[in-house]
Structure formats: structure tokens, C-alpha cells
């Protein structure tokens, strides 16, 4: 038996192509109406609540979820198409993306029924925004070193401590976070953490913005001081979050957002070099397109595995490892080639402005959502080395 992982060629079914046309038409309308500028990834207003509601109205949020929770019971491959078209268009997905990708599926699996009935339809309507509370000042990749305490009290828990690097916490309505309910045991250092649904904008929660090197303020420090969480907001097993965390990873790590974050600079480079590129530009573009195509095939293949009910954690880690390294290098490779673009290229200024932003964005891509080092550790375990 070979150790190599297979990514079978999955083709998107016909219904996906129909859906793709609908998404493109919708985005074209939004762009025409001035909701967002597809050439401007570095806009200030990354939060677009009205746009979020219109996406929800289209039925494109929680697409794969059961109808009774507001979902559409459509396939992962259809969701894939919506995700990639939004990403390539630089649509403002910040408000709904985390809930749709990650928080919703966690609630579906672990929340009590009345919470599901209350919250999931609101995600589907694009009304609410989620954040993820994992990292702390002294625990990042080492998730199970988290110290923020959830102490038992009447009818629930009191939370004390600090989460950090929490994207969108300043606009979020909810957070799914892990807190320490018991100390780790000698046998299992991962024991003692519990997953909670946190209602934001409540007493005992203070959100402090943190400036990023891009000039944006997307992530935050979130300080909890005797913040009360009721019992029915516990998600899954008390002290057993470690059993729940890994199954999310296949969803989180294999999507098109893991290689398309800086894609816009490639489009703009192709525009700048025009229809008759010199040999160097042609070769550079050809290689980048070949690499992009390969990652997309791998990523679609993982979507097919998810659709088939598998948990392709190692495959997803490979997609994120290769994908994020690629999207990190992309602005630099495009910059190499842009050096030869004619001064007269009409979009030269746009390309330069985009490169400026993409180059500043690049360092985070191999850190967020699981560092390259963590991913390679997971792959190594899959190979039987650990």
C-alpha cells in the first residue's frame, strides 16, 4: 500500500454551472450598483451588512444545511462554486463567511435543538456574524494551552481571560470559543477545554481592535471579565473540545479561499502584459496558471470527498499547505514579472496599488487558520511518522 494520497478528478456537475452563472450575474449587478469594487481588495468597508442579507436572500448561505434550519440541502460542490466566485470577485464576504463555513456546521453538530432553531436560520438570512475564539496571548498554534477559564456558577459559567487575533470580533454577534473548564490531566494534556457559544455585545466582554500591518483593523483582543454564559450554550462534551476540534479542519482548510486570497494580482498582471506577452512574461504566467489549476483540482477533489461523507483532514492540510504558500508567493512572482510591463499599460497604477496591498497581506496567509508548521505536522502524522 502506498503512502501517497489520491485526489481523484472530480468534475463539477451541470447544476453547478447553472449556479455559477447566477452567482456571476448577481455579483455583476452588485458591482454595477457600487456595492464593492472588484479591483480594490484593500477597501475600508469590509463589512457590508446589506450585501450579506442579499446573499442570504439568494439562498447561498448555509446551502448544505437541512431545510428546517433555513438551509437548502444542496451539495458541497455547489457551495464550492459560490465560495470561489465570491472570492475571485473580491466580494465583501467578511460578515458571513466564518458562520457559513465553520460556525454553522459546529452548531449543527453540537448545539441543542432550540439554539439551532434560533440561530441557524439567521445565519442563512445573512443577518449575523460569527467570530472564532481560539488563540490567546500565550497559546496560538498550541491550542490546548488555552487558559481562559469557564467557572461553574448558577445555571451556567463565568468566563475570565483573554482571546486574541480574533477576526471580526468587533462586528460579530456571536463567537464560538474554547474555554478551560478543568485542568489538563497527566494522561491527556488536551483534556479540560470546552466549546461554548458566546453572545457578543454583552456585559463582561470588551473588544479592543488591533492594527494589522496592512493598515486594516480586522482582528481584535477580546477580554472577558465575569461574563456569564448559560448552560445551554455549551457545545458538545464538557472538557472534551479536543475531540471536536479536528473534524472542523477539513472544512476550514481545503476551500478555494486557501489559494485565491491574492489571486487578483494575477488577473491584473495578465491585463497589464496584454495579448502579446514577451517570452518571460508568458512563461511566468503559464507556470502560475498551471500551479493555480492544480491546486483548484485538488481543492475541488476534497470538496468531493466531503460530499461523499469523508473526513479528509490530511488531504485538506495538503491543500492548505500548498495553497497558502502559493498565494503568499504570488504577489512576489507577479512583482517580478510586472517589472517588465510597459509604462504605458493602462492598468499599471491599479496593479501597483494591488501589489502593495497583496505584499503586505502575504505574511499572514501561512499563519491564519493553522500555520504551515502545524499543517506539516498533521501531514507527517498521516504518513505515519509521528
Amino acid at each position: 500500500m502506498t503512502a501517497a494520497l489520491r485526489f481523484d478528478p472530480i468534475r463539477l456537475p451541470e447544476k453547478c454551472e447553472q449556479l455559477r452563472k447566477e452567482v456571476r450575474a448577481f455579483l455583476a449587478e452588485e458591482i454595477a450598483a457600487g456595492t464593492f469594487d472588484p479591483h480594490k481588495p484593500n477597501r475600508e468597508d469590509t463589512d457590508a451588512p446589506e450585501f450579506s442579507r442579499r446573499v442570504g436572500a439568494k439562498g447561498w448561505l448555509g446551502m448544505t444545511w437541512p431545510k428546517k434550519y433555513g438551509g437548502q440541502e444542496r451539495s458541497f460542490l455547489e457551495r464550492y462554486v459560490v465560495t470561489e466566485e465570491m472570492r475571485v470577485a473580491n466580494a465583501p464576504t467578511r460578515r458571513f463567511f466564518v458562520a457559513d463555513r465553520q460556525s454553522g456546521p459546529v452548531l449543527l453538530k453540537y448545539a441543542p435543538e432550540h439554539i439551532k432553531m434560533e440561530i441557524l436560520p439567521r445565519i442563512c438570512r445573512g443577518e449575523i456574524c460569527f467570530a472564532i475564539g481560539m488563540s490567546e496571548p500565550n497559546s496560538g498554534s498550541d491550542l490546548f494551552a488555552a487558559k481562559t477559564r469557564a467557572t461553574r456558577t448558577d445555571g451556567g459559567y463565568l468566563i475570565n481571560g483573554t482571546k486574541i487575533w480574533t477576526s471580526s470580533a468587533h462586528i460579530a454577534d456571536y463567537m464560538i470559543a474554547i474555554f478551560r473548564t478543568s485542568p489538563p490531566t497527566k494522561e491527556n494534556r488536551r483534556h479540560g477545554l470546552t466549546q461554548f457559544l458566546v453572545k457578543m455585545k454583552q456585559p463582561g466582554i470588551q473588544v479592543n481592535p488591533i492594527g494589522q500591518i496592512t493598515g486594516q483593523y480586522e482582528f481584535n483582543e477580546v477580554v472577558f471579565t465575569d461574563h456569564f454564559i448559560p448552560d445551554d450554550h455549551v457545545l458538545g462534551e464538557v472538557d472534551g473540545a479536543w475531540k471536536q476540534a479536528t473534524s472542523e479542519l477539513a472544512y476550514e482548510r481545503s476551500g478555494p479561499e486557501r489559494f485565491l486570497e491574492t489571486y487578483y494580482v494575477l488577473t491584473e498582471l495578465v491585463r497589464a502584459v496584454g495579448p502579446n506577452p514577451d517570452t518571460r512574461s508568458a512563461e511566468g504566467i503559464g507556470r502560475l496558471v498551471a500551479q493555480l489549476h492544480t491546486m483548484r483540482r485538488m481543492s475541488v477533489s476534497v470538496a468531493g470527498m466531503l460530499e461523499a461523507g469523508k473526513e479528509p483532514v490530511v488531504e485538506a492540510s495538503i491543500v492548505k499547505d500548498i495553497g497558502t504558500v502559493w498565494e503568499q508567493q504570488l504577489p512576489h512572482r507577479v512583482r517580478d514579472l510586472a517589472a517588465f510591463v510597459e509604462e504605458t499599460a493602462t492598468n499599471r497604477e491599479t496593479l501597483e496599488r494591488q501589489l502593495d496591498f497583496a505584499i503586505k497581506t502575504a505574511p499572514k496567509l501561512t499563519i491564519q487558520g493553522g500555520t504551515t508548521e502545524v499543517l506539516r505536522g498533521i501531514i507527517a502524522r498521516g504518513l505515519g511518522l509521528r
Partner: protein
Amino acid sequence: MAESDNIVVETAEKIFADLADPQTINNDKKNSWQGPLWQGLSEAGLPLSWVPDDLGGSGASLADGFALLNAAGRFAVAVPLAETMLAGWLLAQAKIASPEGEMTVLPASPKDRITLDADGSLSGRARGVPFAKAAKHFAVLAHGKDGVSIALVDATKARIEGGLNVGYDHSDTVTLDRVQPVTLKAAPKGFDQTTLMLMGGVARSLQIAGALESMLDISVRYSNERVAFEKKISKFQAVQHNLARLAGESAAALAAATSAADAIANAKVFDDEVYLEAAAAKIRCAEAAEKGGAIAHQVHGAIGFTLEHILHRYSLRALAWRDDFGSESHWAVELGKLVATRGADELWPLVASR
């Protein structure tokens, strides 16, 4: 293309395991294994997999044949199996029956051209032709004043200058000087040298992907055996991360190659989407051959650099296969030109076409 659900692949893997065990053939300095292996493959009808029954072949599907090439890559098979398959496939495009014995195709590079003269003879030079020295016949794609033709040529009529590629396999220069072919027919409409190069490139991509799978396997195995600094080297994080990268390169190569094979197997015409699939596969697999092979060697240390170790059978062949039917540089330029011609706003629709 799973290993177990394909009878063609199963048959081939049994033959490879019996007659092309990498360690056994690596120890055999006289190459006495080549005859029995070729005989075994021929008796199973594998070299003419892509030739329909009525043209003398075994009529396997394109998909099965591609899976067979991937398996051949996993064993780094060094007989003209892929070449004979491609030659049989090329001849079958013009309904020319395949003869018995080893064959190869020319040209094997997008830069070379064979011409068809008015008297029906073929002339031209083809470089880097794999296994030309071992071939009894050539399947030739030629350009005449009426368009593209496909011909079967007796190898003894050609001048062959022998050479070796990086992987120590024959890669020869074949010169045709007013050679009369055994058979010559017009190629089907739309079939040209680019079609042949794309098909050959996908064959090589699958072989490279197979070789990388084996490089990953033997590297993982070795890292679990070799002890240094009082522990297995597989326990060092630096080694683990290198092997994780090798797994990624191997997976990328396999994904690109099998996707391109699937695209060709289901294609009615070689449109831009098939072109993207095939060109991208050759580019990405060639890159993986370089990056992945380097890691496999790094993990093995000095022993992997010896002739007596089997690693080079895979690593050097994977590097050599990059050169056939257009290198990754060639295809990158061509793909880049295609993308530029279509324009910036047509790039994403091309990538997301399936």
C-alpha cells in the same frame, strides 16, 4: 484510477512485481531482465492497450491506459511501454494497424518537424526520441503540403544516433532522409503535432506522478529505519516537514496528471480547457519531479546517491521525463500565450471551466 479496481492495472502490476522488481533489476548489470519483461507485457497485450482489436491491439480505454502508465511510473519501468502505447494510439488515429514489437513516436519534441514530400517519402530530424534504438517501428507525424499525415516507418530505414537521457534511458536522434513509409494516411481533421505533444506530455506526467509516489514510499520507509543521533530520523521535525512537502508534491503531481488524463479520456475535441489540463499537468509534474526528488534524496543522504540504491531509478527518470514532448518551460510559454490571448477577464472562466 484506484489501484485495485482496474484489471489492466492489476495485470500490469503483477507483471512489474514479478519481472521488474526495482531492487532485482538494479542489481542486474547486464539488463537481462528487459527481454522477459517486454515479453510478459506483450503477452498481456499491454503495449498495444490503446489500439482497437481490429487494428491488432487489445482495445483498452484511454482511461485504463492512463492508469497503466501511472503504474508503470510507480515501478520506473525502463522498457518502451509508454512509447509503444503512444505509437499505437497515434497510428490508430489514422486507422493504421500496429505491428508487433517495440515502437516509439516521432517527433518527440514540439520543435522538431518531419516533412512529407510529394513522392510520399519522409524527411527530417527528431531529437530526444525515447527508446528509438530499441524500436522496430516508428509512428511518425509528418507535415505535407496537404496537411498532417500519420505514418508507420520501419526503424531500419532511419539513421539513429544513440544517446542517453538523465535517467540512463535511450533518448536518440532519428534522421529520416527520403524514407518510404510502410503505411501513410492522412491524420483526422483537427489532429496536429500539438495534439500528439499534449498526449505524450500527459503520459509523461502520469509516469512522473507514479515515480513520485514510489519516492515518497521509499523515503518514508527509510526514515523509519535509519537511526541517527540515537533516534529514527523520522522523529526529527525537520525530516517530518520535508516528507510532508514531498507528500504534497506527490499529491499535486498525481492530481494534475490524473485530472488531465480524465479530461483527455472524456474529450470530444482538444479545446482550450483540455489544453489547460494537459499543459498544466506537464508543468506541475515537472516542477514536482524537481522539488520532490530533491527531498527524497535529502532524506536518504549519501546512500541514495549510490548506483546500488534504487532511489535514482525513480528520481533521475522523473527528471528525464520532464524533457519529453515539450519541457515545462515550453508548455508554460504556450499556456501563458493562450491566457494572454484570451485576456485577463477570461482567465478565471478558463480555470473554473469544470
